[in-house]
């Protein structure tokens, strides 16, 4: 069929066309475009923090200016140590990722089992109530003494730190499986493994993801604490090293850089969560 000039005029404005039309409209309130920007409050607040930092570092004098470097000095230090920081990031991730991944798999599988089978829950819960509140940092010296290499020791404490939040949340999610899903699964006669994998696991995903994000924060805490103790590379070691050298601009840069890395990891997890939970309105 030949294109008719009438068609565009009768077609409905699509979602993508509508705002474009609005934006192209000559507007007398031009200055509003900045104020309409989403998230401008956050940007302004960060800007305020940096200004305050600048002001504070230039007016307050500690014993030597190096203890409290200004934003510019810190930024310069950050730029200068970027190659080293990237190497340290890689070394940290090599410890963190296996520990975290192992904790996720173990925490999810065991959490689903404990949350689903009452006698397993009765068996394991008293132990979990005792073991899960132990601050995982307390294991660090012992793990370093016990395990043959620093990497296995740090990987172990990362695992312990991430396991409990993931396990506890997964078990809570599995235990709160809606009755109707349980009934439907029983009527379909699903085998235990099918039931866990196809019903309990997807239904518990919202809980699992909140456990995984708490676990991720914990695993970074564990990692950096372990690295403060005895690493030869890594983000925690970077900060510790330059604190020992009293090179505070680099140390502060290391702290900021670590914050960015953790934030990026959290954002990645958030994206995976959003994609996996598309079926929740």
């Amino acid at each position, binding site marked *: 069929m030949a294109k008719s000039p009438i068609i565009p005029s009768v077609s409905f404005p699509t979602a993508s066309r509508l705002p474009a039309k609005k934006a192209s409209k000559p507007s007398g309130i031009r200055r509003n475009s900045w104020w309409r920007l989403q998230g401008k409050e956050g940007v302004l607040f960060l800007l305020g923090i940096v200004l305050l930092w600048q002001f504070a570092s230039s007016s307050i004098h500690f014993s030597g200016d190096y203890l409290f470097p200004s934003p510019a000095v810190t930024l310069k230090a950050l730029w200068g140590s970027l190659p080293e920081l990237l190497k340290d990031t890689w070394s940290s991730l090599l410890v963190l990722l296996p520990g975290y991944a192992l904790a996720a798999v173990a925490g999810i599988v065991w959490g689903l089992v404990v949350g689903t089978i009452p006698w397993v829950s009765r068996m394991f819960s008293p132990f979990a109530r005792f073991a899960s509140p132990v601050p995982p940092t307390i294991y660090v010296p012992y793990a370093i003494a016990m395990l043959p290499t620093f990497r296995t020791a740090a990987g172990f404490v990362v695992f312990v730190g991430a396991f409990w939040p993931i396990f506890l949340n997964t078990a809570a999610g599995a235990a709160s499986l809606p009755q*109707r899903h349980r*009934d*439907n699964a*029983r*009527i379909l*006669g699903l085998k235990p493994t099918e039931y866990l994998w196809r019903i309990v696991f997807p239904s518990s995903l919202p809980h699992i993801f909140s456990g995984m994000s708490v676990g991720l924060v914990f695993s970074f805490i564990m990692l950096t604490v372990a690295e403060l103790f005895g690493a030869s590379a890594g983000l925690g070691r970077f900060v510790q090293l330059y604190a020992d050298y009293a090179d505070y601009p680099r140390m502060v840069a290391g702290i900021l850089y670590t914050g960015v890395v953790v934030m990026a990891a959290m954002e990645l997890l958030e994206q995976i969560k959003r994609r996996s939970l598309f079926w929740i309105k």
Partner: protein
Amino acid sequence: MSALDTRPTNCTADAGLKVESLRFAYNGTPVLLDINLAIGEGEFVCLLGPSGCGKTTLLRLLAGLETPSSGHLSWKGRPITGPSLERGVVFQDYSLFQWMTLVNNITLALAKSHPGKDRKWRLNLAAEFLELVGLADAARKHPFELSGGMQQRGAIARTLAMGSPVLLMDEPFGALDPVNRGRLQNLVLDVWSDANPRKTVVFVTHDIEESLHLADRVVMLGSSPGRIIDELRVPFARPRVWRTLIRSPEFLSLRERIAERFREDTLQRIEAESVVGGDAEGI
């Protein structure tokens, strides 16, 4: 009272669904008391009663999702000891798994009900039943993309596709608007009367008109504790057309008589309670 005092027709000893001197208590509180019920194969029975009369519990017992405190349930002479693919259930709140597409919800059920068949066969059968309930275009959608009525049609398609000879429906249209409810009632009646052999349907509702529209027989349950207070064979010829049905004097008088029967039961219960209360005051 000729229509109302019809006792259950005596079915052949082992045919259909049977409930014998069934009692069910929850945490010591009696929920169902001395239930006797025989439902013939191919019969469409409505369990009618107010909220809290235990009609859903009775359905769950028939499904095998609950265990009776005492008494006996059977299908074709075999005792009901747990859920079975022979008895498909449609719940009021939507039975579909939200994380699967409509068609995957059905093929998961088919993998259990027809384990010998391959995936292609299951997909074809699923498509066939989605077509039957008018959801052919929505096969690849997830439940959150569908309206309540469409989800319920999907749940019905799943249960029908499994080929269970018994259909247990627990207020399946309770959450729907009147238009959708009417459509789905007709859908259920159509599939029920077209199927060969006919399915045995137990349909729980608190809506008198719905029960008169759908059922061969209405079983009335009274509350606290739940028990059968009366039964009624619905005399209307099939196929039933709602618009004509609702205007017929027989329909109106039956509806009124059922409502009256429930009022009577409520009054009797209140009287019984006030007598007990009077005694207590005397002490």
